[in-house]
């Protein structure tokens, strides 16, 4: 009798462990299956896109950040984004389990955030920069002075070339007390990338982007 009870209890225990394991494993298993399809690819592109700086500058040769994310998912190198720079490359490398390469100098070099500034006295109100701005950061009307909403400007440079009177400057974004932070002590420890001769300026790559 005692032997029978022991058997039943053990059987019950084994069954419950099996059920638990199944329940525990199944979501992982099913997500792994579905993530391999188109849905998985879209998810990957979205996660890559979330790491890109969204300046929409086209320095990578694509028309925006999302197309570059798609291209990365399809195998393009992760070091073609100068505005994102080192941080973005490292984040992408971590996400995709790839080698964190230095930024490809052919696509431009990493620099502090800049914002467009319109010399308003020289602006003729042609609205060409307004049409070029990917994030509607320029305010103005035909034959009226235009100006840049600094908080919205991504520093993409795309408004500079269309300007017929060259009245747009790219100025370094000013540091205020609220966004200032302590610098590293002594000499900066952050790795500086080797400076190769740039055969392809950012402007050229933008033209290539069309």
């Amino acid at each position, binding site marked *: 009798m005692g032997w029978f009870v022991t058997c039943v209890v053990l059987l019950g225990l084994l069954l419950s462990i099996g059920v638990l394991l199944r329940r525990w494993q199944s979501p992982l298993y099913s997500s792994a299956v579905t993530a391999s399809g188109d849905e998985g690819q879209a998810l990957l592109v979205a996660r890559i*896109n*979330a790491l*890109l*700086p*969204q*300046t*929409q500058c086209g320095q990578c040769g694509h028309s*925006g*950040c999302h197309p570059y994310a798609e291209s990365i998912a399809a195998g393009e190198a992760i070091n073609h984004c100068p505005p994102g720079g*080192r*941080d973005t490359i490292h984040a992408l490398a*971590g996400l995709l389990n790839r080698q964190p390469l230095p930024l490809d100098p052919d696509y431009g070099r990493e620099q502090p955030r800049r914002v467009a500034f319109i010399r308003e006295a020289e602006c003729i109100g042609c609205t060409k920069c307004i049409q070029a*701005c*990917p*994030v*509607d*950061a320029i305010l103005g009307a035909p034959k009226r002075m235009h100006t840049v909403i600094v908080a*919205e400007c*991504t520093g993409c440079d795309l408004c500079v070339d269309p300007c017929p009177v060259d009245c747009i400057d790219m100025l370094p974004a000013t*540091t*205020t*007390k609220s*966004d*200032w*932070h*302590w*610098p*590293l*002590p*002594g000499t900066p*420890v*952050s790795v500086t990338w080797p400076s190769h001769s740039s055969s392809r300026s950012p402007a050229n790559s933008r033209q290539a982007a069309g």
Partner: protein
Amino acid sequence: MISRLQHTLRRLRRQPGYRRSISSLRGGIHPPENKAQSLQQPIAIPPLPPKLVLPLLQHIGPPLRACVQPGQQVQKGQVIATGDHGIVSRMALHAPTSGTIAAIGETPVPHPSGLPDLSITLIPDGEDTWHPDCLQELQNPFEHEPEDLLERIAAAGIVGLGGAGFPTAIKLAASARGAIDTLLINAAECEPYIAADEALMSERAAEIIEGIRILRHIVQPRHCVIATEDSKPAAVAAILAATAGTDIEPVIIPGRYPSGGEKQLINIVTGKEVPRGGRPADIGILCSNVGTAYAVHRAITLGMPLLSRITTVTGAALQQPRNIEALIGTPADYLLQFCGLRADEIHRLIVGGPMMGFTAHQLDIPIIKTSNCLIATTRTELPPLPPEQDCIRCGLCVQACPVGLLPQQLLVASKTADHDLALKQGLPDCIECGACSYVCPSHIPLVQYYRAEKGAMRERGEKRKRATHWERRYEEHRQREAARAAEQRARRDRLINAPVPKSAAQVGFWTPPAETSANTQPATGSTQVIDPQRAKADIEAAVRRVKERKLARQQTNPDSSDLAPGDGEPRS
């Protein structure tokens, strides 16, 4: 058995002489105190300075908005700037004395960046006349509703005077009544050199206790504790004497840096840990600085807004270091002169303590509500750090860390800008006390690395936030452009495939003949189905009419300008 034990404990706790058991600080260091220099003399009140500079941002939150004009005469205690939203919505900044507003503009302010900020400059007239709204004494504040008292505290411009500068009224209001178990008054003041609270407690203990009673009336905690270090005998004696006979419990903790850190003191006194990313109120504790309690007493009982604070002005470059009751806005160089600055000996001016403070970029920065100390050091007193050497893995920093972090790991994360590692190692929990840098035999400025890394992490967060915003803007831009292009295409297609014959009528120059009007019914709108044959005939008829009219006009008046209406071009 157990219930009897609990009963005994409860009885013991009710006795006035009960001393709660305290935990000891994890880690910590014993740097030279250097507080005695400034405590040789009582708190001094210097004469009115020639000018006062009042920054609009002296607290945590958005800056206040000036509500005076340059050239305007103001009186002592008059509101010169107010908050309009968020946590500063009821806060105010007051003129510390009567005088004229000289300017509102950017001036040097005490900030580690050395960047200027908006301030109101006041030239005192020497009269020191009070504004009629001030000095309205409350005889018995305990009969008033807590909401009324909170309103007064906010209007008095009181912020946490321990250094953080969080608006006190907001902090008190956020702690709903009954939710707070312990009101903890922080009088530890553990950082070297700083003796402002110690001087205040030694001289004005009774007023402090009054302030604590008001805070207690607002928050209604179950326990009320004032904690101070045993390294300040005069202050301890004064507090013990003032709390005798009240149910405010004095707790004397062993002197060690940084036991005065908010989370550290809470742990020492109550044994509880503030959860990561949480506030003390989450575990039923409200922590307030002793100077804040004093300011609350002055604001509620005497009706005096926060116009001055006790600041320690010390350092070897001064002939007479002392604690000063300085008007908010007093320039630091004026106070240094008052204490006998030896101008040829000053090496640098430190704002705050030597452990957590920063070097000022100018001497003419003003005293603000959170300035607890100015140290005018000589080169020998606080010499520059020797060159940094490599980490020898001695582990002294691990023993010194009061939070229980691993400073070596944090250093690796900071040097390689590995934000994820820094996060994993708990960098956000670092209180930047500097104990690790103090004990490091390799002179590695660990805290500076952590500060830089914290800044880089914050910047990364802001970059991500900006990126999300830009992505949304770009998406909206793209969709709008696509919609516009589609609309243009659709309009072009419509024009090519199905021209609307009533365009001439829409222009309004010409009324069609009766039979055309009856045929096309232009008033019924554009949704009618148009027979292409008839439309073609209509257009031909219209073109013919226009030609005839043109011809007729040319015959009558060949010079007149061509006013032919509607040549088929649509208007919207």
